[in-house]
């Protein structure tokens, strides 16, 4: 059923070939499917993409410069704004990096709470992916279903830390507040509620022939290319590498939990989608285990307000929903970091877009862009 885009009708003998002309289309900065302010400069031959050049920087806030001007505690607030769809993970990455730098021991309960929050946020983030991906492909209804479930997660967050988007929940050395009384039971309820909902999305999308036609074999990213482009997270796993920092370089309390790393086979759009769907189930599993084994005790190590880590450098990375999120911090021993380099997953993943989209249709570009799950503030920082 697939028509090869390179099929060309040969002119009749003696006839002359119709002249065609390539043209340039600006997709964005304001476009329904660029998920923020990203501009893609497309060179097209009819419907076929000849060249894709992403143009970023519309949301550049120079967070790295801001970091040099804030204390370690204060910068926690800014990490929320790097990746606003999974702030908990961004917080977590900062905490892990700073704690590694200063050698702070985090109480076990705090580690468990962090894992629960990070995984809840991972589910929420993947739900946002599912919502925007389905809407990119023209199926509007799963959008609302995914946001319905996300709403419950966000309620759990608000119950705990008071905010619905920029949580600012974690603190260097622990978490800001203990969870409220009914958090554990509510979260358990949510986990058991989530599994059938994920099945529901799969019923609408996964095997739908139209969906398959739009995603199977589209935007293939083979593994060597993915590694060379530093692609990480679900796109990397979709390309077939069984790699997850939570498992391979465990941080926080991830080494005690039992979960699988879903991988894809072909590295196409469908695989990336499927990996994320599967990750939602695995995250729910982790949360259930963490709630089961949630220890009592302190939630925060003693960290002074004028926290001065020792002079030194640190490179720490975690597995955020979009992939590897890393902080490279240089400390000069004062209350403010000397230099912070933030390595975000979207930045590297977006770079691989032109390779994946080459010689495909404009509709495929939308699908691939959606499947990379880019968050533009994370790209521009």
């Amino acid at each position, binding site marked *: 059923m697939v028509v090869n885009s390179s099929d060309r009708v040969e002119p009749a003998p003696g006839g002359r070939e119709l002249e065609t002309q390539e043209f340039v289309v600006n997709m964005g900065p304001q476009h329904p499917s660029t998920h923020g302010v990203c501009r893609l400069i497309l060179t097209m031959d009819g419907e076929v993409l000849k060249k894709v050049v992403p143009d*970023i*920087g519309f949301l*550049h806030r*120079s967070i*790295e*410069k801001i970091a*040099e*001007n*804030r204390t370690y505690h204060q910068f926690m607030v800014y990490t929320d704004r790097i990746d606003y769809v999974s702030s908990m993970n961004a917080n977590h990455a900062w905490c892990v990096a700073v704690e*590694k*730098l200063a050698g702070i021991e985090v109480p076990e309960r705090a580690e468990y709470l962090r894992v629960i929050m990070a995984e809840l946020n991972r589910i929420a983030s993947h739900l946002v992916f599912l919502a925007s991906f389905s809407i990119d492909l023209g199926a509007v209804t799963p959008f609302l279903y995914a946001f319905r479930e996300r709403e419950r997660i966000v309620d759990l967050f608000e119950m705990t830390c008071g905010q619905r988007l920029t949580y600012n929940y974690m603190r260097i050395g622990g978490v800001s507040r203990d969870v409220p009384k009914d958090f554990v039971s509510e979260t358990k309820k949510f986990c058991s509620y989530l599994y059938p909902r994920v099945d529901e999305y799969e019923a609408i999308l996964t095997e739908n022939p139209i969906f398959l036609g739009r995603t199977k074999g589209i935007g293939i990213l083979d593994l*060597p290319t993915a*590694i*060379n*482009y*530093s692609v990480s997270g679900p796109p990397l796993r979709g390309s077939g*590498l069984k*790699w997850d920092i939570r498992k*391979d370089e465990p941080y926080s309390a991830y080494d005690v939990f039992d979960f699988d790393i879903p991988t894809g086979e072909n590295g196409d759009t469908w695989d990336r989608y499927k990996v994320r769907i599967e990750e939602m189930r695995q995250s729910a599993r982790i949360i259930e285990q963490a709630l089961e084994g949630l220890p009592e005790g302190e939630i925060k190590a003693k960290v002074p307000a*004028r926290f001065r880590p020792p002079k*030194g*450098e*640190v*490179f*720490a*990375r975690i597995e955020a929903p979009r992939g*590897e999120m*890393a902080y*490279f911090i*240089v400390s000069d021993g004062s*209350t403010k970091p000397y*230099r912070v*380099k933030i*390595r975000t997953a979207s*930045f*590297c993943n977006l*770079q691989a877009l032109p390779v994946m989209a080459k010689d495909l249709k404009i509709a495929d570009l939308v699908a691939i862009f959606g499947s990379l799950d880019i968050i533009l503030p994370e790209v*521009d920082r």
Partner: protein
Amino acid sequence: MTAEELTSKIKATFAEKVEELPAVTGIPAFRVKAEHLEEICTTLVSDPELKFDNLSCLGGIDYPETNEIGVVYCLFSFAKRHHLNLRVMMPRENPEVISVSEFWVAANWFERETAELFGIKFKDHPDPRPLLLIEEWDEGYPMRRDWEGKDFIRMPEVGQEK
């Protein structure tokens, strides 16, 4: 390879071309001269024991006190599962270093970002356009420590370290 093995291996391979730095929380760190970078990267990528196939992160760093500016390369190997931290230090006037995007394509954007924010020139870069800043930006290199822009306000120190 463990960090110690990697350190000794690198020292053995490159001898005086590398200068060992204090480890970055467990990750071996080395200082490299700009002119040796290409050779070292070639070996790092191709050596069957090193096989650094992934550039995890690349960023600039600026030390106005010592008049040095540098590029930090955070390398990782999926094949061997080990990390390496390399850095190239240059004088702050006209810093120039070879682009590593021929070894790791991911370096392309990282280098573009570093080039415009730190003013480090990357030789033989395949696409040397500005990435994040506007095209007509002419206010210097904002990520340098001593940069002063017309809209840049250092935040007041409220009751701190007076």
